[in-house]
């Protein structure tokens, strides 16, 4: 069968399947398939949930340090058990459903939100052939699955019959749909350069990490991705200073825990994707094994997210939309066009681009990136930054002849 063919390409799946197949009667193939899937699912879900828990701790500690605080340090060594404490707290809370809410949709939304996040992680190659990393349509799969969360957020916002939630949901739909386009186009650039759609093969094609080869694509992807997971400076879906909590205003207890879990899961997934697409995945140097490299790179990207979250304010909704359509979309198209032309010229054929080709591409792309960025900055209103000098208006003359002496202005200059 077609599906099985795709799945068989994953080494781990094949391994587990083969192991069980060895002592099962032939007519129970479906059972073996089921067992294998369940085992694999358990591994993936646990890996993801545990790393998410670790991320929440990491993020809160790092944010604390960025803000010259300590962050959670009470529960367990260095506060490492804090996620567990949070979970216990959330699960013991009353699970309320607002009156007048659309109950089935309200209940379904957290699940619809969570499942795609879990599925996406399955295709990310932790090393050469882990999980389902060799799925030959990995990139399309990722792009397709991640867009489901738009629906989930809208379900949550719509069903809870709360105006704040509705605002958050409407913003979410507008923003997520817009940012999917530049994100998709920048991913196409990766696919063309790597000459494949499978995530494992993308990693294998990166003799030079693609962040160096196509910085523009990286910039567009990471910007669009941080909008996709609604993190600073694009966190307007749940902008806490405006909407309170946005689409999950009405959620509590276990449902809220699921929503929060997914929300913290998104950075992990995006960081893993960035690592795979642009940071050459598990490939590294020295005796350190591949998965360790992968985790290190992922955490570097996560640290970047946390750093940005600690430093920058949020953009307004229409500015975010114009950034997507006026800024990122042209940039991503430029990136795609340049890559396509280069690949067409080098015409690598089956073997893929050689290191020399990649080096030449790097040089060209960096200069194009800088030019494109300057142009876009100017188009996006660099000129508006100039301001007139303040002039004291007439009312000031009321005491024009009093104290501001020459000494004062001298002092001000000395300051």
């Amino acid at each position: 069968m077609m599906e099985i063919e795709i799945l068989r390409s994953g080494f781990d799946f094949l391994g587990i399947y083969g192991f069980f197949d060895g002592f099962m009667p032939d007519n129970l193939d479906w059972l073996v398939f089921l067992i294998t899937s369940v085992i694999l699912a358990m591994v993936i879900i646990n890996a993801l949930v545990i790393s998410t828990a670790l991320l929440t701790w990491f993020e809160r500690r790092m944010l604390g340090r960025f803000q010259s605080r300590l962050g959670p340090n009470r529960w367990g060594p260095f506060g490492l058990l804090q996620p567990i404490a949070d979970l216990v707290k959330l699960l013991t809370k009353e699970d309320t459903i607002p009156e007048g809410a659309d109950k089935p949709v309200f209940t379904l939304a957290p699940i619809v939100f969570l499942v795609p996040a879990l599925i996406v992680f399955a295709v990310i190659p932790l090393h050469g052939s882990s999980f389902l990393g060799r799925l030959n349509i990995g990139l399309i799969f990722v792009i397709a699955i991640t867009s489901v969360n738009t629906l989930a957020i809208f379900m949550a916002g719509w069903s809870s019959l709360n105006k704040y939630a509705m605002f958050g949901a409407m913003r979410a739909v507008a923003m997520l749909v817009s940012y999917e386009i530049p994100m998709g186009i920048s991913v196409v650039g990766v696919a063309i350069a790597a000459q494949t759609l499978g995530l494992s093969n993308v990693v294998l094609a990166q003799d030079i990490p693609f962040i160096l080869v196509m910085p523009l694509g990286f910039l567009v992807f990471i910007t669009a991705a941080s909008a996709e997971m609604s993190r600073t400076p694009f966190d307007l879906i749940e902008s806490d200073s405006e909407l309170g909590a946005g689409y999950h205003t009405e959620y509590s207890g276990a449902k809220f825990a699921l929503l929060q879990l997914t929300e913290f899961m998104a950075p992990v997934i995006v960081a893993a994707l960035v690592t795979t697409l642009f940071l050459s995945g598990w490939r590294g140097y020295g005796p350190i094994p591949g998965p360790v490299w992968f985790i290190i790179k992922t955490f570097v990207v996560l640290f970047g997210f946390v750093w940005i979250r600690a430093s920058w304010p949020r953009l307004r909704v229409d500015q975010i939309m114009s950034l997507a359509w006026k800024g990122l979309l042209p940039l991503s198209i430029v990136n795609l066009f340049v890559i396509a032309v280069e690949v067409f010229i080098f015409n690598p054929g089956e073997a893929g681009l050689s290191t020399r080709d990649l080096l030449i591409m790097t040089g060209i792309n960096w200069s194009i990136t800088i030019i494109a960025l300057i142009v876009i900055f100017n188009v996006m209103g660099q000129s508006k930054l100039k301001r007139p000098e303040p002039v004291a208006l007439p009312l000031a003359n009321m005491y024009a002849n009093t104290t501001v002496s020459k000494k004062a202005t001298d002092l001000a200059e000395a300051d």
Partner: protein
Amino acid sequence: MSINTQPVTINLGPQHPSTHGVFRLRVTFDGEQVIDVEPVFGYLHRGTEKLAEERNYVQIVTLTDRLDYVAAMTNNLAYVRAVESLAGISVPDRGMYLRVISAELQRIASHLIATGFLLDELGAFHTPLIYCFRERERILELFEMLCGARITVSYMRPGGVFQDAPIDFWPRLDDFLSSMPGYLDELEGLITENEVVLARTRDMGILSAQDAIDASITGPVLRATGVQWDLRKAEPHEVYDRLDFDVPIGSVGDTYDRYYVRVQEMRQSLRIVQQCVEQIEPGPVRSETPYFIRPDAVDTYVGTESPKGELGFYIVSDGGISPYRMHIRAPSFINLTTLRDLLVGWKMADLIVIFGSIDIVVGEVDR
């Protein structure tokens, strides 16, 4: 094809993260656009003016702590000045210097809070806010040395301040004065040139100078429109006429100007405190005043430049030991008069930011 839409009315507050306390805005939105705003307040009404009628003049100092609770020192100052003018009490020099030092420190603290919360409303994840609070903490420590309390200071008395500063106050103040400009630079590095902040604050919520004057708006909000009006210069009280400082103004009157005027004012306040430290001389800090002040049956109004604007006390005396009537001209309250004109037409996110840039404290609005 046209889609049938209808406006949505939302109650922003009284429980909302960005309304600076229990303040309520009934906002009507057309999509994200604000089409009508109606401020509703009174949730923090404690009847300060009525309470004052049955307390004696010194006891009321404790009430003024609770008006603008992030700037208790300047409230104290405004009140005791009114009482002094009512009862004709003079203040010794050292007392005046101590008052100016504490009031200017309080101005820095208050502006730090205004800046921090403005950035929080812009969506920075508490980082500028916490940096601001860290520096404010050092001011509060200085206040603790001066008067044993950090927020509800009750430091000033009619006729001076209650007690001289302890000896270890001065080295700490010097320390603060020398390191604060560096921290301010750092804070500005985080905010002033940040493109996101610029995109969110430049040319947003413009208040014209004429509108501001017509609505008798005062303080940084007025100065941001380009009107160089500061009671410290216009009617110098305490020792402000012996000090050199500038009154920073803005050029456009938008949210960014309101932020930037505050930052510059903090630098000017540091300059003022520095000069006070150089000029202050030993001596008494409080003139001999009776415990129970009995002014003649007169009335008086005295305005003082508080961090939010002109804080005025109008006191009517009937010759007794407590005022017959006291009215407070609260700058936060009066600065809200143009709120509707400022907010209508902007997006929801701008509403929060423009509202935050006016910098109100609900304790003062509701009194």
